């Protein structure tokens, strides 16, 4: 395993060193200094992968990406951000994530210090959005934000459940398809968006009803608990549960456990969907127990570097919109093979980020789809496969 990793790393490094050389077209571009204040914790899969794709992209696009980790402490996050802004040799760009609206002070400080900023994953919301307006108006140095279209993701997941249930005719005695929704929380925009996707999809399907929208704090165990409660309730209620929509993969895995504990066979009598492209989810998909996992939004890290590279090279992504929204993609048993390895090995250097840069004259237009991604992948090192 270690040997494989070492080989992968060696290959990657060789590839990375070679890549810029290969793409000499942009060789005149000056190197960029980019600092990313990571709101997450070390070991937190999503944020780790964001940072990793960011760094991988940096290597491909001549940008030095410095990652500072807040360890899920927003005060730490603010101290880190403000420290960066106060540096004598300021970076070219500062990437922040406005989780819990904690990035606003940093954003304002950067504005004052003349450091250009990009918000990733979480942008300004509510009062801050009203007060500060769109990017580059009040805060001239706030270039924009790059987020994921999680509503569509949520809807896609729901539709997959509905389609499967309809095929299998998993209607309850009342003639309706009964689903359970398990959300992470009710306040963060990321959660609200994907939940809204579920509601949208169900609203469009009159034969479907979400019995409950339960919240499990993104965790597997709580999801298992509430799912078990739901299943028990549904049984008392005489309901035949057709599917469980989980806001992320851990909760989907928890739901799977509860389903199994209830004596129901996932994939056969009930379908469960998750989101995040997590390794465990991919394994369950492979095992036929999980219908799909949507996601890929950890690639926002890489995409953000792409946008900044374009911007630094004079192709402003804001030509389209300062709000760059990236669609996610579902991994099912069908496309599982292509990305499973990438995810599993986190060999993000296999991604040719340069391919995702805007074509000349079409600034701000990027194709960040999973198909493009798959096609951009260089084959894994023979040793890795």
């Amino acid at each position: 395993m270690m040997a494989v990793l070492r080989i992968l790393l060696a290959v990657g490094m060789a590839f990375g060193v070679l890549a810029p050389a290969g793409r000499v077209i942009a060789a005149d571009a000056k190197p960029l200094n980019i600092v990313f204040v990571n709101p997450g914790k070390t070991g937190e899969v999503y944020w780790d992968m964001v940072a990793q794709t960011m760094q991988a992209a940096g290597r491909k696009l001549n940008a030095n990406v410095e990652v500072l980790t807040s360890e899920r402490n927003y005060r730490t996050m603010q101290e880190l951000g403000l420290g960066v802004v106060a540096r004598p040799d300021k970076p070219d760009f500062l990437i922040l994530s406005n989780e819990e609206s904690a990035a606003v002070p940093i954003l304002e400080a950067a504005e004052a210090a003349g450091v250009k900023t990009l918000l990733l994953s979480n942008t300004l919301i509510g009062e801050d959005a009203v007060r500060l307006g769109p990017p580059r108006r009040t805060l001239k140095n706030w270039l924009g934000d790059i987020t994921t279209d999680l509503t569509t993701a949520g809807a896609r997941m729901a539709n997959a459940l509905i389609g499967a249930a309809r095929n299998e005719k998993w209607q309850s005695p009342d003639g309706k398809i009964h689903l359970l929704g398990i959300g992470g929380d009710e306040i963060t925009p990321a959660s609200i968006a994907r939940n809204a996707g579920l509601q949208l999809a169900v609203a469009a399907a009159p034969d479907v009803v979400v019995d409950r929208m339960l919240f499990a704090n993104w965790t597997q165990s709580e999801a298992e608990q509430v799912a078990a409660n739901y299943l028990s309730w549904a049984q008392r209620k005489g309901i035949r549960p057709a599917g469980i929509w989980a806001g992320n993969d851990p909760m989907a895995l928890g739901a799977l456990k509860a389903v199994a504990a209830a004596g129901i066979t996932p994939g056969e009598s009930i379908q469960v969907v998750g989101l995040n492209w997590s390794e465990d989810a991919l394994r369950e998909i492979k095992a036929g127990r999980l219908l799909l996992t949507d996601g890929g939004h950890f690639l926002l890290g890489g995409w953000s570097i792409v946008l900044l590279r374009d911007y630094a090279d004079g192709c402003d992504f804001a030509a389209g919109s300062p709000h760059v929204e990236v669609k996610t993609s579902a991994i099912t048993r069908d496309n599982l093979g292509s990305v499973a390895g990438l995810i599993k090995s986190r060999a993000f250097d296999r991604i040719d980020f340069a391919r995702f840069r805007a074509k000349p004259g079409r600034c701000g237009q990027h194709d960040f789809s999973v198909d493009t991604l798959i096609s951009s992948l260089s084959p894994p090192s023979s040793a890795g496969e």
Partner: protein
Amino acid sequence: MMRHGDGMNGPTKPAPSRSVVRAMIWATVPVLLLVQLLASAGVEVSSFWSQIRQLDARIARVAESRAELIAEPLWKMRYDQVTGVLNEVMHDETIVAAAVYDDTGAVIARVVARPSVQALTEVSRPVAYSNGNIAVQAGRIVIAYSYATLYADTGSRLGLLLVVGLLGTLATMIAMRISANIFIGRPLAAMMSAIQRSKQDGRAYPADVKSSNEFGQLASAFNAMQHTTSGALDRLGHMASHDPLTGLPNRRSLSERLVTLSRDAGSPDALIAFCFIDLDDFKGVNDTFGHDAGDKFLVHISERLRGMVEWEDWVARLGGDEFVVIRPEVSNEAAAQVFARQLLEAISAPILLHDKQVVPRASIGLAVRRAGDPELSHLPALADIALYHAKSKAPGTVAVLDEALQRDYRRRRDLELAIPAGFSERQFEVWYQSQVDMMTQDVIGLEALIRWRHPEHGVISPGEFLPLIERSGNNARLTRYVLTDACRALQQLATAGRPQIRIAINLPPSELADHSFAAELRETCERFGIAASSLELEITEGSLINNIASASDTLRRLRRLGATIALDDFGTGYSSLAHLRRFPLDKVKIDKAFIHEIPDSAEDKAIVGVIASLAGTLGLTLVAEGIERAEQARAMREMGVRLGQGFLYHRPQPLDAVLRGLAEAGAGEERVLADSPSIAPEFAA
């Protein structure tokens, strides 16, 4: 207050206050206790009910608030959170159990604090969940709770209230007892003590109560009343022993004074002068000037007596017109007489009544005795003897009690006591004195005259015993005695062939007033078979005046019977010519006083002459009394007075002698000497 009625209890005995205070305590304390207990129990019960309601409301609120809290976790199937919320409910110790059911009725969470055997109350509330999209009933929360704590709390509070109530009542009782003793018992005891002491010696003892409350006022009123009562008692005592009119000590004081006289005297040999003063003719003053003037008169006299005497002397009014002056020490009897005469002089100063001068006159009986005399208490009686003498013998003088007076007194008393025996043993004898026709010397009538032949004292003159007869109320008896004797004499006269001779009897004033006398006379005459016309009744002017109407009525009845009416002693009394005309008279007897000086006194002759001519005019027969000498008889004859009576003709003599004399008819000049007293006997007061 003195419930036991024995005023002999010690004056400080607190019995009266105890009963009042105890009664007050018994009357108030149970009521107080009852009211207190009822009130506090009522408050407690109402508080209990309100606590029950509060508990119900609180548990309902708990259920509602918990329902709100668990709505979301229940709906969102976070059953652990539901249980957590439910567990928090159990901090409330009245809650015994709580459960949450979901919309299928399944128990989602259940917590039981302790198994309870007591009846539980349940409150159930729906758990409503809503968000922007839906509003559903996610389930139901049921809380079972118990009133046990409330019951226990209320019970212990009731117990506490009972104890507090009892303690409060006890304290109230003690406070009442103490304050009642101070504010009621003590002043009452003080007043009782004052009453007890006052009872013992009759003097006023103020109750020592200082407070200014009602009892203080009562005590001061009581003290004032006691003072008034004691003053009234003093006045009553004074009145009992003093004459209200003059303010002098009265008869009762005299008896007390007599008791202390010898004791107060300096030595047993000290001479005590006792003056018994009687005003002469006080009745006349009253009649003439009225009783108010009479009272004024008495007050004047008393003031004079008081002004006369020394400080050691003692003046009293015994009643009516009787006064007493005692001088506790005189040097001798002569000095006492001087003192008495001084008193008389003082009394005799003229007094102005109704603008008319009245000269008071009084008689004094004086008795002087040694202080050591054992008969000192008889002083008033002794002085009265002297006074009797003075009044009867010499009004307006001082009579000193001596052996002679005492002897007279004893004789009078003996005679008075002997009167009944005198009647029963026929000691009274009727003698007869003839009335003679001075022309013919014929006896034409007899006057019955009474004599008392006493076995010890011998023959007693009517002048001495008639007042005693009158005073002892025997006038009527004596009159009938004489009448009967006279009737018997008339029988004998008739037998002796001298029926024309009439007998005159003296009629005292009391008989003249007696309406039945005329009837009795007739009856007596019938009994003896004699004619009433044989009787002549002699009356005096005084008896006419005293009762004019009654007297003239009796006289008319007697005249109708045929009796002759003669006016006796004419000329000595009022000698009213009007009387001669007004009363039915037949005969007038000229008093011997006018006869005595005749024929020497020209005045008397003139008077008799006038009377004779008047009698002739009025058709009255005249009788001259006291004819003792022949020239008197001659003078009478000359003046036209034909009838005479006197020693010249006959002395009074027993009937036998009279009859014998008559038998010797023709020997009319013969004198019969009687051994009777020399004084002319008169049947008149």
